[in-house]
């Protein structure tokens, strides 16, 4: 597997209540040379964002109890951390999904299924840690 040369070793948190989806993305991200962790609920993800301070958070939107939109809003309201890039992933890519994701604080929206090429695109677009 080719190591990503532009932004190696990013810390990336994958959030999805579908554990097989988050597992797959973590495996692929590790193949690309990144340090990837997964969370299967938004609350757990929020705690990880605060403690681990990832460069990039890739999150599902349709999660029970606390949605991906709520997670994005919570992350954006955190002070005292380096704000990560936020990417929303949803099952449909309708205009409304994209608009709602951006309004909640996401930087970018991707439509499932997400695979290797999408991850490479995310890292290429958003790979530089925010200052």
């Amino acid at each position, binding site marked *: *597997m080719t190591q990503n040369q532009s932004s190696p070793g990013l810390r990336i948190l994958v959030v*999805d*209540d*579908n*554990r*097989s*989806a988050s*597992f*797959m993305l973590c*495996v*692929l991200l590790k*193949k690309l040379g990144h340090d990837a962790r997964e969370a299967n609920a938004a609350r757990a993800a929020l705690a990880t964002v605060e403690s681990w301070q990832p460069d990039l958070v890739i999150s*599902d939107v*349709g999660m*029970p109890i606390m949605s991906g939109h709520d997670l994005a809003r919570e992350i954006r309201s955190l002070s005292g951390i380096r704000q990560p890039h936020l990417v929303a992933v949803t*099952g*449909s890519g309708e205009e409304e999904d994209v608009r709602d994701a951006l309004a909640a604080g996401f930087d970018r929206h991707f439509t*499932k*299924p*997400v*695979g*290797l*090429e999408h991850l490479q695109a995310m890292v290429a677009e958003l790979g530089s840690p925010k200052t």
Partner: protein
Amino acid sequence: MSLYDYSASLKRMAGDTGLLREMAGLFVADVPPKLEDFRRALKAGDLKSASKAAHALKGLALNFGAARACKAAEAMERGATSPQFDLAAASAELEESFAELLPALRKLAGDGLPPDAEAGAA
């Protein structure tokens, strides 16, 4: 016609047959309890929960480009809470599509081969 898209799935997983098999194994483990959630919600008349279970099933099927199962789950997810929706027909389609997909992915989890591969080939 294939029940799922082997080539696209493998490509998404960086050509890693081991990962593809592992993902198929997770699918086989995760789908039956989600189907149970769906049936329980439907039986209880909790259509919001039925829609959520369908959403989860769609997410699992999307990883494999399983067109019929994805379509059935999406129809249920979107339609379950609508008054004009034919719940019985959509539910039957969802059940049938996952019932035919499960053995195919159980086979994939076992041998990692495309669905049309001859036994013993590759």
